[in-house]
């Protein structure tokens, strides 16, 4: 019942958001698009990393893979197909590397997932230089702004809906058990390896699809920009500041972050990263449960 309510709310928000291209100026719409992208990235990151307490920095790798699927494939397939293919390619990649690295925990896992992004970046750079004799790709015929917006919206809604369903499923319960005590969960019959690979793959699908969908926003695609570690770090920060163990936290936090970044960039163009950094430190120090814990605290006081 609660799951159904959450899904209905997601659909309702989605329908309302679908009207925005005809209501908002291009500038504001671009801002909403960036909110949506980070919301989807943070929600899909939290799908695996939230309940399990694993720290994955592989988001940039998945995002970049998706972007390159669009760069390579857009001439031979429709935009939507490229977005789907981007998601699938990233998911396949995640399943393969997940099988190899998901026995690692803590800092080791974080470092190796960060390394994955670098590995794919350099592999693609090398491949492009050696075989395609190019350093970047031009997207000659990008789809219109509305098509991009609606596609990203659909991917975001799908990510949120998937996150809701995972939370209510046995997979979600297994992930919570893994986060609480992985070995205990195993002795209670959880195939932890399979659960982790499944969730890691699922979260990679959305990051890949977003990369593929957003790639057309840049007319020129090169490895250094689409595999930018900044996207991965930003995703982790947004999810953690929002509260990765909740669903609403990362969403609220992505809106908060996108607006804050934009505001600071316009008002304090020279020191905005400084201010952002200070804010982050304050949030992590004084609100370790994320913004979502504010809500819980407020509710507890009221009761």
């Amino acid at each position, binding site marked *: 019942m609660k799951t159904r309510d959450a899904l209905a709310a997601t659909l309702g928000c989605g329908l309302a958001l679908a009207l925005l291209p005809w209501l908002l100026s291009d500038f504001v719409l671009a801002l909403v698009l960036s909110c949506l992208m980070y919301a989807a990235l943070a929600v899909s990151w939290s799908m695996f990393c939230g309940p399990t307490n694993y720290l994955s920095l592989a988001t940039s790798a998945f995002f970049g893979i998706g972007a390159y699927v669009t760069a390579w494939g857009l001439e031979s397939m429709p935009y939507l197909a490229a977005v789907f293919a981007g998601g699938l390619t990233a998911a396949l990649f995640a399943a393969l590397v997940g099988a190899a690295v998901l026995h690692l925990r803590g800092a080791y896992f974080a470092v190796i997932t960060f390394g994955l992004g670098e590995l794919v970046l350099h592999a693609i750079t090398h491949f492009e230089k050696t075989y395609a004799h190019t350093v970047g790709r031009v997207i000659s015929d990008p789809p219109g702004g509305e098509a991009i917006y609606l596609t990203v919206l659909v991917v975001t809604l799908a990510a949120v809906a998937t996150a809701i369903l995972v939370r209510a499923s046995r997979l979600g319960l297994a992930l919570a058990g893994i986060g609480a005590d992985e070995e205990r969960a*195993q002795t209670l019959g959880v195939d932890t390896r399979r659960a982790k690979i499944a969730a890691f793959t699922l979260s990679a699908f959305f990051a890949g699809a977003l990369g593929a969908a957003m790639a057309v926003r840049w007319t020129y695609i090169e490895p250094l920009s689409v595999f930018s570690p900044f996207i991965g770090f930003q995703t982790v920060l947004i999810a953690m500041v929002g509260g990765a163990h909740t669903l609403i936290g990362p969403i609220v936090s992505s809106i908060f972050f996108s607006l804050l970044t934009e505001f600071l960039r316009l008002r304090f163009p020279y020191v905005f990263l400084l201010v952002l950094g200070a804010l982050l430190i304050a949030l992590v120090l004084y609100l370790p449960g994320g913004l979502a814990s504010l809500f819980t605290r407020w509710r507890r006081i009221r009761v």
Partner: protein
Amino acid sequence: MSEALLSARAVSVRFGGLVALDGVDLDVRAGELLGMIGPNGAGKTTFFHALSGVLVPTAGRLVVAGEDLTRRPPHVFAAHGVARTFQTPRVFRDMSAAENVRFALEFAGRMRRHAHDAFDDAAAILGFLGLAWVASLPAGALTPARQRLLEIGVALGARPRILLLDEVAAGLTQPELEACAQLIRRVRDELGVAVIWIEHAVRVLMNHVERVAVLHQGRKIADGDPRAVAKDPAVIEAYLGEEGVAQRMAA
């Protein structure tokens, strides 16, 4: 020996140069209540780790209900009906007591049903253990003694055929200890599960089990009727020591 529900053959565990278990053989039949004793560091908990797949033995074989599970991961042992508790309770602290039991029912417990309906849902299991009134409290907020009881509840949620209890009665007073032993007997009697029970309170344990195995320095030095084992010179020498002999004479 084919009727044994669980069969450990020459199980050895080495950590580098240290031999924690040295060729232990053990057969447990369905519905048997077996005590396991031994001085500190004898290898009892290591043996449980091996029996539940938490630790892969360096050598030896483990057969559960006719299937060779050697080197398989812990969830396979759980799926075949091996459930255990941990010496330091490892309940999911943020989940409520009832959610902890439900977790086990949802995974390991999914494959089987209990012989007795009274053990087939979280409320009934908690009620049996006298934990009904803390069902909705987070497990981490319970006292250590209650967390140990909850560990039994979680293990029962896995609907086991063999229950491995690792010092579930540690830190209890004498009357509580007796009550805990009664509880373990009832679990065995009503569900017909086999139980291997490790406990330091040797005398209480000896009074309630039908068979006892003694580990000493990684080896099984005795296995049989508790009264016979208590008189075994090797056990007295190794486990009870000089002081123990004196105690036993006095008792």
